[in-house]
């Protein structure tokens, strides 16, 4: 009996180790994050993208500082949002191509916390990824912030806002926001690589990089969209008040008002 008990404990701990290693970044050869790795961009490009990203990040920092001054209680909430973005990007997402892949998660962040704040949070997340997970890099930080922290959230938020105006269901808004944020990130990354290595022309090089990355990134974007739909469905059922506070779900009073409006 004692032996069996011992054996069960061993197999449980083995199972735990296996689960931890599968969701950790243990299989580096199979990851397919689209952060431009360190050393990939020549100096003028690295500097250029850093300069291009800087105004957005400075604006994001200012927006964050202002928000924290007005609502000191938001400081911890924003930190939690950033930590959530990091954790989401470090987790492995189910994938159809067999290789595992990481979501960018910026579409969800853009809906929940608005793009300017995401520009700041993504910069910190990318810095953490470079220094805690060796994903991305320091000289390529500007380029990665531009694709993941600026282009992705703004495109995702744009899709969300447009579909919201068209009164599409929340699921549709979220799906397109997440999927398009992901696609925008990967297209901007392909463009950045094409500009750095225009061989023979920027257009041809863009087509080449975009095609090669599309193999993993297009299915990934669709799956990220679907994951987003599940995420917001679950949030609606267990975190309704929080979503109302963030303005994503109409408050009961407003909902009644709009329904009255529709009836009238």
């Amino acid at each position, binding site marked *: 009996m004692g032996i069996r008990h011992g054996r069960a404990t061993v197999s449980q701990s083995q*199972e735990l180790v296996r689960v*931890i*290693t599968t969701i*950790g*970044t243990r299989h*580096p*050869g*199979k*990851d*397919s994050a689209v*952060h*431009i*790795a*360190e*050393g*990939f961009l020549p*100096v003028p490009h*690295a500097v250029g993208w850093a300069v291009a990203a800087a105004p957005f990040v400075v604006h994001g*920092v200012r927006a*964050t*500082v202002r928000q924290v*001054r007005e609502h*000191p*209680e938001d*400081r*911890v*909430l924003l*930190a*939690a949002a*950033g*930590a*959530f973005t990091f*954790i*989401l990007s470090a*987790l492995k997402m*189910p994938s159809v191509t067999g290789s595992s892949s990481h979501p960018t998660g910026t579409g*969800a962040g853009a809906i929940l916390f608005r793009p300017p704040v995401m520009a700041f949070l993504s910069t*910190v997340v990318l810095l*953490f990824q*470079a*220094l*805690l*997970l*060796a994903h991305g*890099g*320091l*000289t390529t930080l500007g380029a990665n912030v531009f694709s993941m922290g600026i282009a992705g959230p703004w495109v995702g938020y744009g899709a969300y806002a447009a579909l919201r105006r068209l009164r599409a269901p929340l699921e549709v808004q979220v799906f397109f926001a997440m999927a398009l944020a992901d696609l925008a990130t990967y297209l901007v990354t392909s463009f950045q690589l094409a500009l750095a*290595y225009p*061989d*023979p022309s920027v257009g*041809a090089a863009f087509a*080449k*990089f975009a095609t*090669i990355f599309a193999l993993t990134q297009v299915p990934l974007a669709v799956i990220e969209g*679907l994951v987003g739909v*599940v*995420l917001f469905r*679950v949030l609606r059922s*267990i*975190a309704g008040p929080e979503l109302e506070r963030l303005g994503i779900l109409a408050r009961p009073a407003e909902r009644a008002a709009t329904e009255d409006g529709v009836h009238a």
Partner: protein
Amino acid sequence: MAFSIDAAAWGSPWRRIAVADKALLVTGTLVLDLLVPAWPGTLLVAAGLTIAAIASARVDWRLWLAALALPLTFVLTGVLSIALQVGPPAPGSTPWWSWGPLAVTAESVARAGTVLGRSLAGTCAVVLLAVSTPMVDLVDAGRRLGVPAPAMDIAALMYRLLFVLWESAVTIRSAQAARLGYVGLRRSVRSFGSLAAGVLVSAWDRSRRLEQGLSGRGYTDDLRTLRHVRPHSPVFLAATGAWLLALAAIGTYGSGVLG
């Protein structure tokens, strides 16, 4: 693997060296890595930093190799794409292989090799900083560099929340896996979505409780902790200067640009 780089940073003998000194070494090496001709410059960077990491910073060589291999997928995909040329090859290039509009030329392979070398050497530099400097030291350095305090405060809080959230993510994920939540794509997507929601809600919940606890203790401006004052190390700075000069000289001369 998840946070082993972080764990190594806390125990690293290089933690005692001032962040500014290490930053000089890493940024100087990164800039030179991009500026000097790739061969033999990047090999020199990779070899020099590996020796420094293992002999002086006492990094476990298995961790060092594992960390260097992390960006491998992106690097290989990117490098192979650079080696592959689309459209008519430029006049004067030496074609090695061609099929329809696709071609591999000696020039494109050389370019791909350059990027491969730079990326390997650059990764060595970033990983060396990562395994010798805990995030709190960097956040503190950022604060002294004049990044607005609330922003750095959020970064510091984020870092501290990572580990708690990661643990809840791992727990939720293993519970889901035990209930066959990751069998098949459809179920996997559903499980992953609710995992994300679970982590987000637990982040909200924790942040609310943390905020209440902190405000009860008078948390109004920022969450400062005692800082270890680390003086500059003349030996380290001299070694860094010598390394950067040698790198610039050998990197340039070795490729025959000066010679």
